[in-house]
């Protein structure tokens, strides 16, 4: 009887997963950050990329205020994860290294929130 129930449960779970009719599983973890998005930008990012995200040619740091939030989110995702494909690597070798150091220092942030913030920099 137990075996039968578990088989039905398994079949149901598999069916739902494969057909996708239950939608995506909800992420249960809620991450908390030491600093707010604004604080991270002003305390850390701005040192190299400028208060308005204008970049700094002397440090060879790129501007951040030339992209939409959606585009910036892609770049931040790539940087924080060391690439977005299995074995392709990243386009942001230097920033991947720096970001890891900054996250270790507590300057971690939510990607969508930071991308939104950066996209509004030039309009301030």
């Amino acid at each position, binding site marked *: 009887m137990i075996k039968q129930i578990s*088989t*039905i449960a*398994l*079949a149901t*779970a*598999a*069916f739902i*997963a*494969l*057909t*996708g*009719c239950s*939608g*995506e*599983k909800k*992420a249960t973890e809620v991450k908390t950050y030491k600093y707010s998005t604004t604080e991270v930008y002003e305390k850390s990012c701005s*040192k*190299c990329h400028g208060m308005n995200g204008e970049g700094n040619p002397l*440090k060879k740091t790129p501007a951040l205020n030339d992209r*939409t*939030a*959606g*585009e910036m*989110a*892609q770049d931040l*995702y*790539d940087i924080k*994860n*060391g*690439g*977005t*494909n*299995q*074995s*392709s*690597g*990243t*386009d942001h*070798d*230097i920033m991947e*290294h*720096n970001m890891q*150091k*900054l996250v270790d*220092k507590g300057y971690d942030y939510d990607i969508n929130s930071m991308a939104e913030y950066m996209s509004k920099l030039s309009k301030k």
Partner: protein
Amino acid sequence: MKKNEILEEILNEVDKHPEIMSRREALKYLSVSPMAASILAGATVGATTASASSAKGKIVIVGGGLAGMSTAARLNNTLSDADITVIEPDPLSVSYQPGQTLVGAGIWDVSDIQYKRDDYLPSGVKLIKGSVTAFDPENNSVTVDGSKEISYDHMVIATGLMLNYGAIKGLEGVITSSGKDNASVKQKVGKNGVHSIYFAEGATATWKGIEELVAKAKAHKGPKKLQAVFTHPNTPIKCGGAPKKIMYLTNARLEEAGVRDKVELTFYPNGGKMFGVPEYHEAILQQYKDRGFKWHYAHNLVEIDTDSKVATFNHHWKEKGEWDEDLEEYGIELKSELVEVPYDFIHITPPMKAPEVVANSAIGSSKGWVPVTKETLRHVKFDNVWCLGDVAAVPMGKTGGSARKQYAVLVDNMVASMEGKSLPSKYAGYTVCPLITSIGTVMLAEFNWTKKPTPSFPLDPTKERWIWWLLKVYALKPMTIHGMLSGRA
């Protein structure tokens, strides 16, 4: 399609290779396995059809491959008053690309993966047999074949991507997987030990190449091993697992012929890991060790000399740089050198990019891919433009498995938007990589943007299993061709 028809199709496929699995064994697995039952259910039941909508508007879908045609079918099922036009030049656009690995390893024939665009055009959907040559999203129109202007209220971009063989010095051509205009690539690829399963004809040639390698290994004398090299480029690629799958399958064919000890198999990826998900990375590393594979990270193929049979890689690494007072850490410097690698057999995974017409227009981006909000699949700049499949700038998402999740999300959101409602659906980055690890076993690597395994089944997802071979080789094609292209599953 009825359940017993799909079952019959699966069993017919099984019959072709009794040495791998007999019909009796397959029937046994299918009848006792709740997973197999669910696969059949998933392919036959229209459980995911969105609710009907009377929203109006002219919809243009640019690209009629798996992503575009499935989206057309689902919109057609959903909208009671649908006005949909698909623009697609390739008569074989809906061919089953995931099967190219199996063609390359001699398990399937190319005829097993060829499907015709015109057979899968949903009834009532208009087709323009041409290519979009310009996008004008400010004025809601596109140009077809340089002359014909088509206007739209809503547009879906599903052009797919380009295989950029020409970016490797010594090779030429920028092609699609099933397009006929691949003569430039075939000058050098598909012969003399240079192979690539990423285009359908190249996959057929790869099987010949593996047979040649086996024959060469049988005749090989002396302590020096033959060199089989497998590459992975520095761009996002479709089916991130394929560069490894063809390596596993080459290994299987060499073992089967009893000549595995005559050949060294080495993987040269541009990146520094086997997989973005740590659990799968570790599992693949172990599989590589178990099979005696070698690998060298941070090597990107930049040149090939097909006469002297030497591949040149850009090997890159990081070194400690100067103290950075803003970072309060030492920075890093990037270093690189060119490394020449002689080969007897090389499988090339080409760099990939968005089509020029997309990259150079307002709908593209600096990297070419179409920028969308990755959860909703709506364009970041144009509210009436949507994008999915290989051309979308979505992390990890260039597989048929992710397109299968994306097209349902996109249609839900697009229809809601046409009705003036807020967007109800979110894509969470689901991708599936049925990693073929030998003839008869597959590791079903399912994951999403959380970078954690997200298995559909309560089984350890890092294990190689025959049941996933059954899924990959016999069930996914009917699910895709009959379920997805009809917009139902």
